[in-house]
């Protein structure tokens, strides 16, 4: 039981880490980023190249790839998203536009990766060493993901809810039309939030690449899992993403252990659907 719980939480750590980036991009910058998973994959490949080509340890790669992720997303927002935000008459229109444009972006990133790396399965092994957590043996690399998720989660939560700057970010998320009246530069805030989300995606990619096999075309899987976690948690809710991510990990593990590994995904979706029916705006979501 404890063993499964630990395994589940560690697995959930990955989900949470990945989902938090998306929830920030969607919740604050209001961009529903369908290319999110492909950013993760790009970071995976980046880490792989650094590791296999330059013998740079993936943990060190974090310090290179995460800032890169930040910068890349910063420019993407400035170049691609900003005109869309500027022209959108309301948030639904922006939602549609951002879905469409990031759908295009998804193909571009995926296409570039395909040209460079081909479609083959890529995988390497790093920190695949056993660590004893409460009597359960887990892989160190997964533990890194879990710990990173907690650190980033706590850090960002602190900023959002305990600092004035965080409150301005939330105001941008909740009422972009009103925010300027509070002296908030909506564009700058959204761009920053989008870039932070991108940095989180990059960090997720670095960690995931340590244990998961990836291909240039596998981004969609991450996007979808992240979306589900985000929605389950309540849109824009970071706490929600964190809790929902961990919860999903535990549910999957429990189902695999006590019911049938074949039903893990079915269980994920069942939990997801049931929860939405009971709470139509997610666990930590507010109506509207």
């Amino acid at each position: 039981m404890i063993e499964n719980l630990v395994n589940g939480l560690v697995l959930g750590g990955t989900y949470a880490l990945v989902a938090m980036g998306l929830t920030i991009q969607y919740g604050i910058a209001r961009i529903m980023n369908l290319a999110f998973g492909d950013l993760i994959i790009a970071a995976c490949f980046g880490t792989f190249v650094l590791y296999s080509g330059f013998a740079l340890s993936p943990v060190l790669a974090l310090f290179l790839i995460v800032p890169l992720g930040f910068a890349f997303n910063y420019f993407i927002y400035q170049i691609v998203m900003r005109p869309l935000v500027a022209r959108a008459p309301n948030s639904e229109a922006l939602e549609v536009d951002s879905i469409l444009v990031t759908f295009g972006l998804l193909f571009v990133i995926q296409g570039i990766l395909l040209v460079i790396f081909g479609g083959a399965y890529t995988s390497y092994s790093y920190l695949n060493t056993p660590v004893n957590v409460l009597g359960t043996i887990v892989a160190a690399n997964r533990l890194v993901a879990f710990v990173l998720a907690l650190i980033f989660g706590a850090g960002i939560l602190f900023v959002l809810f305990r600092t004035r700057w965080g409150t301005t970010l939330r105001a941008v998320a909740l009422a972009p039309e009103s925010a300027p009246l509070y002296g908030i530069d909506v564009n700058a805030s959204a761009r920053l939030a989008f870039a932070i989300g991108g940095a989180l995606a990059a960090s997720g990619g670095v960690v995931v690449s340590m244990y998961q096999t990836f291909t240039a075309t596998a981004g969609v899987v991450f996007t979808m899992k992240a979306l589900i976690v985000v929605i389950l948690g309540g849109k824009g809710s970071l706490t929600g993403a964190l809790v929902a991510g961990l919860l999903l990990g535990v549910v999957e593990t429990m189902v695999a252990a006590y019911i049938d590994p074949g039903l893990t995904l079915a269980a994920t979706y069942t939990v997801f659907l049931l929860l939405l029916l009971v709470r139509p705006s997610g666990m930590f979501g507010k109506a509207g």
Partner: protein
Amino acid sequence: MKQTVFILLGLAVLALLAAAPYLLSDYGTALLLGMTGYITLATAWAMFSGPTRYVSLATVAFFGIGAYTVAVLSEVLPYPLVLLVAALIGLTVAIIVGLSTLRLAGVYFVIFTFGLAELVRQTVTWWEVNVTETLGRYIFLPFEGRHIYWQLLALLVVTLLISWWIGRSRYGLALKAIGDDETVAEHAGINVPGLKLALFAISATIITLVGAIQAPRWTYIEPSIVFNPTVSFLTLIMALLGGPSKLWGPMVGAIPLFLLFEWLSANFPDHFSILLGALFIMIVFFMPKGILAKLEDLRAGGAS
């Protein structure tokens, strides 16, 4: 007078389309087939999602249900009956889903429907693996491309007629109102849940039929083939691109996009993704309200 001309013109186009397999190569027919399939999907999708702005990603759930029904029953029942059963199953599932999702709004609905499609896929997989112990199924119906094309064409015509009728009836207006503000719509006397449910069910049934009709083309069916989420995404993108709130919008989106896919994958198989993505981004930038709106703008601009 003008109306008669339009009707006659429409009938002529239809006749031409029906005769196309005799005029084109198999591949030409195959193109038309694929295109008709997507136009029907996009039109059916937009019937519900266009005006209400409930963006559904459940398309492939129904599409797959249709295909699977045919795979399971094609040896057991006569074909028309198989289609009927498929439609009924699609309808039933749609009603159950509709009843349970009526409270969800916005992105919650989007992801819910996506989750639903995956749930259906996982459940079918699990069932096939553990209960029937066959994952793949074979469909050996004596259909060639053109037979499937004709069926799809007929379905498309019916879909357009339904869509047209709704658009000019009071329900079309009601759906747009629902898309804007459900509270106001309710206060205006509209049975919002009922109307949403009805539309969702009609749209889903048509989508189910598309899947059922297209299934015999693949001979072999397994969940990863018929529940391929790309179908949901393409449908949505095509409809949004054309303009989902107009009758011809989805068609105007589906045709060029479909041809574009085909052209790119044939001519640039190695750079397909990059080019597609880049073109896509450009389209969004230069045709913010969809292709149809752009065309109308151009026409208005040209006239003035």
